[in-house]
């Protein structure tokens, strides 16, 4: 029960007045970016990142992770009240949430969503509490070859399970790797890929990339469609809230199943979006009332919401214990960790106990704070939706420009940020996945170093990746995941002729 005493120690760090205030601030900002279409958790966290550079790492991560919880909750508010998913991961919530709200039960829909979301998040945190330090202990025995194998597995699972077109995922990943390689090579010290621009010696900071990709890129996607928010009443009836939450245990099977799906998709980099769609699909298949799905079914709200939050939370487990983020937002946070001078991975559990357990404890508290605040502020944020997009858009542009500049006081970064914006727009539009691109920018360097170190150890023989059971399993699993889409395609071609319908379905999910 070592974990529990560590956790208790974590609570003494997390439950202090300044940290509770940071949590509330983070959650409120998170709900704000979650509610505003065109901004999401990855954008919000990246926009806030430059402001955390001067903070204590624990405080900084509490602020950012609270913002993440807030964004997850905020995305559901607009899905249910306006049929506009504020987040990609709450698209599945619109299917039953909006019909229910439109039928005059907005409070039930919101309370059900928040209740099941909190349950999903709780499951995710419990998983982290008990598994994270164990995973980290295993990982402490890792050598460079094992590390490379784990990185390889993470990249391969994006290709195999990410849901986007596999070749596009590969291209996005490789571009991320190339961007990570720009600047001074950490092993040999030589300057690489500067394209003749001397200032690029310092490399491309990932904050610059995410500001452009998520901030400007999604703004460009959002500006294409004009939003006509047709709100249903956003008044909260408190008795109804308690009744809806009280009804939740009746759907225990759906809750547990969705939490399990979410945790699995969060640890493997499937991400919250894929988790919520998958959970909704499975619920519709297995529920006795499956044919009523889409008309305002309770389980149609529970399933995607639980899975969404379980995935969002458990995505932090591989980030903390292995240094491999399970979602785009986790990737951005991990970049933050590196900027604050921490080294994500198993050593974190040895060197930075306060940080790790403070964060884990703050997840428990932060989610409670988030549920309370989101319920209280639903009317306020619903009113915010009426601020015209024309005002919000230029403000977001300015935040991105200032953010990109303040990373290293470089004008070139601002120009590059705009360039990344165009790339982000094109990729979004054509269903190239952004998460693997960001992941590769953040950990591309480490993966390359691990590979080269193992090559040094083995004197250039690839046999080191099959030297023991652990590393062989990891590499084989990675290769299997890499080949999975190919195998599925071949299989589909043998079973049925029209294989093209698959890809369009997948593309829809990857939005």
């Amino acid at each position, binding site marked *: 029960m070592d974990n529990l005493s560590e956790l208790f120690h974590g609570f003494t760090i997390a439950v202090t007045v300044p940290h509770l205030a940071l949590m509330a601030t983070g959650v409120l900002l998170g709900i704000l970016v979650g509610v505003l279409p065109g901004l999401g958790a990855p954008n919000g966290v990246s926009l806030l990142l430059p402001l955390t550079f001067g903070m204590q790492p624990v405080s900084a991560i509490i602020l950012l992770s609270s913002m993440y919880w807030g964004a997850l909750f905020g995305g559901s508010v607009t899905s249910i009240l306006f049929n506009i998913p504020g987040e990609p991961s709450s698209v599945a919530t619109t299917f039953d949430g909006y019909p229910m709200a439109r039928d005059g039960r907005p409070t039930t829909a919101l309370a059900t969503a928040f209740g099941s979301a909190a349950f999903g998040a709780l499951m995710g945190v419990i998983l982290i509490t008990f598994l994270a330090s164990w995973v980290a202990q295993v990982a402490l025995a890792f050598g460079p070859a094992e590390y490379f194998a784990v990185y390889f597995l993470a990249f391969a699972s994006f290709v195999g399970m990410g849901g986007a077109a596999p070749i596009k995922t590969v*291209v996005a990943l490789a571009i991320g790797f190339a961007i990570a390689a720009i600047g001074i090579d950490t092993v040999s010290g030589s300057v690489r890929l500067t394209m003749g621009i001397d200032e690029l010696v310092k490399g491309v900071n990932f904050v610059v990339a995410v500001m452009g990709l998520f901030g400007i890129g999604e703004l460009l996607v959002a500006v294409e469609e004009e939003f006509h928010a047709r709100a249903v009443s956003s008044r909260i009836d408190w008795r109804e809230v308690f009744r809806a939450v009280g009804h939740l245990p009746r759907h225990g099977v759906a809750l547990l199943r969705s939490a399990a799906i979410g945790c699995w998709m969060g640890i493997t980099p499937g991400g919250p979006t894929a988790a919520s769609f998958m959970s909704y699909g499975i619920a519709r298949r297995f529920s006795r009332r499956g044919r009523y799905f889409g008309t305002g079914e309770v389980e149609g709200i529970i399933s995607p919401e639980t899975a969404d939050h379980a995935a969002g939370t458990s995505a932090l487990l591989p980030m903390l214990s292995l240094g491999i983020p399970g979602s785009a937002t986790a990737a951005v946070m991990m970049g933050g960790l590196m900027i604050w001078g921490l080294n994500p991975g198993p050593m974190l559990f040895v060197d930075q106990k306060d940080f790790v357990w403070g964060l884990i404890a703050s997840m428990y508290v932060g989610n409670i704070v988030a549920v309370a605040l989101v319920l209280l502020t639903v009317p306020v944020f619903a009113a915010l939706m009426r601020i015209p997009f024309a005002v919000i858009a230029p403000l977001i542009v300015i935040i991105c420009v200032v953010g990109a500049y303040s990373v290293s006081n470089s004008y070139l970064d601002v120009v590059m940020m705009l360039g990344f914006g165009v790339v982000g727009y094109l990729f979004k539009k054509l269903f190239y996945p952004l998460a693997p691109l960001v992941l590769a920018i953040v950990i591309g360097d480490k993966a390359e170093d691990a590979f080269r170190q193992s090559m040094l150890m083995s004197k250039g023989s690839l046999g080191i990746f099959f030297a023991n059971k652990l590393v062989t399993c990891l590499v084989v699993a990675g290769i299997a995941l890499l080949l999975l889409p190919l195998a599925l395609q071949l299989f589909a071609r043998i079973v049925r002729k029209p294989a093209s319908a698959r890809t369009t379905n997948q593309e829809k999910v990857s939005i």
Partner: protein
Amino acid sequence: MISRRALELATAVLTGSFGVAVVVQSLDNGIGWSSAGVESGTFPFLTGIIIVAGSLYNLARGLAPVASLARVPIAITSIELRRLAGLFVPAVIFVAAIPLLGMYVASAAYIFAVLAVPRHQSVLRSAMTAGATALALYVVFERMFQVSLPHGALAAALGF
């Protein structure tokens, strides 16, 4: 109007040329095995090759009339294109003006221009929003977080 196919092709060409640039540049660093281990150009060289190969695949798929592409023939309509330009062009001008005007003046002018010129808001309200933005930037960055934003050639000329 821009078709989905044209957009796919343009993106594939864009990623492909980035890949070629990476391949060419990494050759300068040396690829393969040397006495000091794997040479520093090797990894970028391989990623460059993967980018080029993947882009060629996407290019070929974009050229071939595949059912999934034919279903969404138009990616960006002319109205959407106008909205995109309406957001992006002022943003580019804003960024271009920063070295001259400095962050504060440029962002205030930018906000004022995008709100008042298309008549989204009245001139007075636009001016107020613009002023408030610049002030907020100054207070948050220059005062609270001690981050100096560029003041620009204009401020230098005026002696700030």
